[in-house]
């Protein structure tokens, strides 16, 4: 009725029209306020306190009034503005401001981000006023790039092939333990010591184990793939979730092999292709004529993970344009149609699992060499959930979206650790780190409301005849699992 009034009311009677809007808006806000009173009454109105050793009730009427007042006023304002029947729906003629900015800077984003990533250590050192002071930033960069790589790896399974995998951390763990176990293995060390000298294996372990970690993780990806081939959707998600937990529990309980919950320590550090980062005469600094600085190793690690991430991106982009990549995406779109076109969906799914797992294994190997210590506690479900959140937030199937999402998520989480200034607003009792996950959760909800298909929701076609047109996210399916 209100809508009709608004449309048919002649301009000579604006007062009547305003009244017709105000009354229902007020009524609605009043109801919302009453609901809030009912809800907040017991939740906020009462507080349990200990009085003289006994449990007593304290009342907080002023806080309750403030909360209900916020609800009432907020609802009233929304009714009069955003939800007002008088408000004409915004008509979108042509692309929005965001889209226009997007097309304007679109081609430059990727090179700019790449250049920033390559120059990041220099920028960090310059802005912090020295190598040693930039350690925190570069460590953060390494963390973000690790998650970028993991996101890109999982993107193959979830974004391209549409198989929901909640246990991706298992492959990360397989890669990390592959390096940890092989690099600290005494028989292998003795074997190479006899052939090439005592320090050979410690110096070269990482470069030998990196491909091994990828291969092992890929094989585990296939082993996981076989039993879950027939599963779809929720069932697939649950089985992959269980697989992630099984790997972690095996690592904890197989004490003879993995040293259990105590983890594996003193794993050989990364070397500059056989040259150690130490202060000795054969060390990296001495050979390159630099003053010794422990930051050299950190910066080198930064470039290693950057290179690994770029390899992941390159391979994924190439694979997408190959028949196997198109088959992954076709599988996500319609599995039955795939089979009617002669595509073996079993091998296609397995190849997606194995490829995704392989990159997880590479990242795990890097994790072990960076930390120098692995334990099952590093491979909990939280990590899987975080990687999956990065993929979903970034936009399934999009490389750049996943990279930005990883930077926002990991960088954002870190920034929320340092919210000291909030104390000045809320008083000294306020501990911002307690609210970290809450703020983070709000941010995720906000982004998913604003961009339900992730930051980059359009799909880039893999081949074109005349012009490359992005496919709208509404048409792209999310896969059946």
């Amino acid at each position, binding site marked *: 009725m209100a809508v009709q009034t608004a449309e048919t009311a002649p301009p000579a009677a604006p007062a009547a029209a305003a009244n017709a809007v105000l009354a229902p808006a007020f009524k609605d806000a009043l109801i919302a306020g009453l609901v809030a009173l009912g809800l907040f009454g017991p939740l906020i109105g009462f507080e349990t306190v200990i009085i003289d050793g006994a449990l007593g009730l304290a009342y907080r009427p002023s806080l309750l009034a403030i909360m209900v007042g916020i609800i009432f006023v907020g609802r009233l304002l929304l009714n009069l503005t955003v939800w007002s029947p008088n408000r004409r729906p915004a008509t979108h003629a042509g692309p929005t401001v965001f889209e226009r900015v997007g097309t304007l800077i679109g081609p430059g984003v990727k090179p700019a981000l790449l250049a920033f990533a390559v120059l990041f250590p220099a920028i960090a050192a310059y802005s912090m006023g020295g190598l040693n002071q930039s350690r925190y930033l570069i460590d953060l960069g390494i963390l973000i790039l690790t998650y970028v790589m993991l996101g890109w790896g999982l993107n193959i399974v979830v974004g391209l092939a549409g198989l929901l995998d909640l246990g991706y951390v298992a492959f990360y763990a397989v890669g990390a333990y592959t390096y940890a176990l092989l690099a600290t293995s005494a028989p292998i060390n003795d074997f190479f010591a006899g052939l090439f000298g005592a320090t050979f294996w410690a110096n070269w372990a990482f470069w030998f184990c990196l491909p091994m970690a990828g291969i092992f993780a890929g094989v585990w990806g296939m082993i996981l793939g076989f039993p879950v081939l027939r599963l779809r959707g929720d069932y697939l998600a649950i089985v992959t979730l269980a697989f992630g937990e099984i790997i972690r529990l095996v690592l904890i309980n197989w004490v003879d092999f993995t040293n259990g919950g105590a983890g594996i320590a003193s794993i050989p550090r990364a070397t500059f292709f056989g040259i150690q980062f130490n202060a000795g005469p054969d060390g990296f600094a001495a050979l390159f004529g630099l003053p010794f600085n422990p930051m050299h190793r950190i910066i080198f690690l930064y470039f290693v993970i950057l290179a690994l991430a770029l390899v992941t991106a390159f391979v994924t982009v190439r694979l997408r344009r*190959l028949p196997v990549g198109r088959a992954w995406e076709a599988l996500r779109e319609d599995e039955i149609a795939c089979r009617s076109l*002669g595509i073996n969906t079993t091998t296609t799914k397995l190849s997606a699992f194995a490829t995704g797992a392989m990159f997880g294994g590479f990242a795990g190997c890097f994790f072990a060499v960076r930390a120098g210590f692995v334990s099952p506690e590093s491979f909990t479900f939280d990590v899987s959930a975080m990687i999956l959140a990065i993929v979903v937030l970034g936009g399934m199937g999009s490389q750049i979206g996943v990279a930005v999402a990883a930077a926002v998520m990991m960088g954002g989480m870190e920034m929320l650790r340092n919210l000291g200034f909030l104390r000045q607003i809320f008083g000294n009792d306020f501990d911002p780190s307690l609210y970290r996950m809450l703020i983070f959760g709000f941010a995720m909800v906000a982004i998913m409301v604003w961009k339900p298909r992730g930051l980059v929701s359009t799909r880039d076609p893999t081949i074109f005849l*005349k012009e490359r047109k992005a496919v709208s996210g509404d048409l792209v399916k999310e896969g059946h699992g």
Partner: protein
Amino acid sequence: MATSPATGLPRWEADPILSVEHLFMRFGGLIAVNDLSFKVGRGDITALIGPNGAGKTTVFNCITGFYKPSEGRLILAHGRAPTPDEIAEVTRIGERALVGRDAGVYLLERMPDYRVSGEAKVARTFQNIRLFTGMTVLENLMVAQHNALMAASGYSLKGLFGLPGWTKAQKAATETAKYWLDKVGLTDRADDPAGDLPYGAQRRLEIARAMCSEPILLCLDEPAAGLNPRESLELNTLLRAIRAEHGTSILLIEHDMSVVMEISDHVVVLDYGTKISDGTPRAVKDDPRVIAAYLGVDEDAVEEVEAELHIEHAATGAGA
């Protein structure tokens, strides 16, 4: 038109590309297909018709490997009609197929769905269109050439490094796709998402996609459903062109009688999972059992028809 000059037999008897023999399909207690046998002639357009729920799509799903038949044999012949010995041999040794240099016998009931399409070269479309809606029209046609391209890309190894063999194969595949786009009139929309196309164009694209997998037998499940008369006419032209220029045999399920009577050489009629008629369109049209199945008759009329058929049968029996 559909008779073989050498033997005087109809083509589906002389040179069948597909022989369905005693096909049964049971779902629990329900018998969807009951002892169905028919043949599809090489180079023919064969229509499978029948009232709703007659089991036509079930037969299609059995032929294309999506269902495993409860019983029966489905023989697909590449090159030429196989001799009874060859069929007996492949059935006995328990292999999926017996492939020679110029001919091959495939037992479709032993093959999983992707092999029916990839190796036996039977392509199909679906009653409810199944395109890759989020991929472009061109990408849909490239996915259809998956197996050939997969081999050309060295199972992704050659393709990863962009070796010339792969680039050439990709170019050839694009040309094939362009040919079919031209054929179905979708060249201008090659770079649009398939889900954006109007309904009639989606139907045509699905046929083009099936043809990109270079089938020898094309199975179309209600290709004219939802098309207007002009689009139906275009479909007839397209199907005739496919048969004439590519020698692809076509088996189609269709309710649109204008399409069936216009283009098919051979019509098989199903009702309640059983074959009730089989022959040229003209013969089928006048068959009282078909008329009864389609229009429905009361009990007396059924008895009358049956009696008449019995007399007819006895007469032909006596004549022979």
